[in-house]
């Protein structure tokens, strides 16, 4: 059975935003560090490294998850999506991103990537998510600037636009 020793770097292969990537890292490197410092996707932010703040939330196999709680060695074969993949093309925002802009759903922007990844996964899985469900999902992401209300409004607006077939 494969045993990856503690002191060496090992190859780990996974998909990020649709592209297969292979990195050579120690087992212990956190996925948040792999994404940011090995691959250069710095849109995923690190806020606590103990799974509470949600700033590093990415999507793993379609579900929102904390990148700081995934070890590089676990990432083998994962399908990962980060904030950099939300906009379909450069210079154009997704419906969700645009809603955040329209509703002042961000200030410093540090928690925003994680919040977008939570909501993007939620609205994909539950297009008719109620406000209660949206708030429950958002409770896993801390924001210190906005007081949350503008975020909830942005999420509701994005849901309504997407339901009407916007993209």
């Amino acid at each position, binding site marked *: *059975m*494969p*045993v*990856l*020793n*503690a*002191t060496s770097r*090992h190859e780990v292969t996974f998909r990020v935003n649709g592209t297969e990537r292979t990195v050579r890292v*120690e*087992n*212990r490197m*956190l996925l948040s*560090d792999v994404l940011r410092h090995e691959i250069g996707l710095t849109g995923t932010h690190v806020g606590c*490294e*103990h*799974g509470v703040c*949600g700033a590093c*939330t990415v999507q*793993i196999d379609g*579900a*929102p*998850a*904390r990148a*700081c*709680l*995934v*070890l590089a*060695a*676990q990432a*083998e*074969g994962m399908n990962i999506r980060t904030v950099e993949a939300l906009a379909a093309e450069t210079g154009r925002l997704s419906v969700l991103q645009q809603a955040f802009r329209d509703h002042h759903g961000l200030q410093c922007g540090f928690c925003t990537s994680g919040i977008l990844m*939570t909501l993007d996964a*939620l609205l994909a899985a539950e297009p008719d998510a109620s406000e209660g469900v949206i708030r*429950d*999902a958002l*409770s*896993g*992401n801390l924001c210190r600037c906005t007081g949350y209300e503008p975020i909830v409004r942005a999420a509701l607006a994005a849901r309504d636009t997407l339901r009407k077939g916007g993209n």
Partner: protein
Amino acid sequence: MKPARFSFVRPQSRQEILDALTEHGSDASVIAGGQTLVPMLNMRLARPKVLIDAARLPDLARIEEEKGELRIGCAVRQAQLEQLPNLVSKQPLLARAIPFIGHVQTRARGTVCGSIAHADPSAELPLCLIALQGKVHLRTRRKARTVRAEDFFLGMMSTGREPDELIEAVSYPTAAPGTGFAFQEIGRRHGDFAIVAVAAVASGDGVSLTVGGVDDVARRFDLGAGRDDGLDDALNDIAWSLNARDDLHASAAYRREITRRLGSHVIHQAKAEAARCQS
């Protein structure tokens, strides 16, 4: 805040997990979802020499319904159980308790058996296992054994799992007809560790109350089928029998008082539900 070094084993079968556990014993930690273990690694509270990945095998990621039990394999994510069709009728207590576990982002990765293995006194899944008198299925390379939940949890983060044993599954009994269930939890914030969590199970035979977050393990009390007039006394005895702790989130007295109040609340709820089922 980065983990210390560890070797990482990626077993290809259950047998390989067991082999690795035999080889590394107490030097190893099994990692499944990692939602509790990785914070400990990051803070270097835990420094296992070896991690054995138990979450990669589809065989172990099954929920099987058999003989009045939901048997949940060690790679089953909490979200997978949460989304099990008809969970609310198969086992209402689980359906009501799972939303209190962390947040959607942690339930997506965290496993059911991982929570059982970790034995946090405030955790919902061990509480439900004790409340429902479920079982823990342990296996080594040589033998398998099944332990009753109440015998499995020994203390704060301490269980009867031997170092070479894998929790290969846990079994939660499904709801028997005519049984009522209720769950309540008080935390500081939504998604926080429970200050007090209570579960009541009521049937024609009587009612039980299980209290988590107060003592070092969740504890179950059989209250029989007695009438309600002795309930306050019984709850007071229960509250005092628990070794309640003071911590920065709540006083011991608060934990006892909430045990009395929420205990009464869930017992009435469960009894009412049982009565509705029977009528």
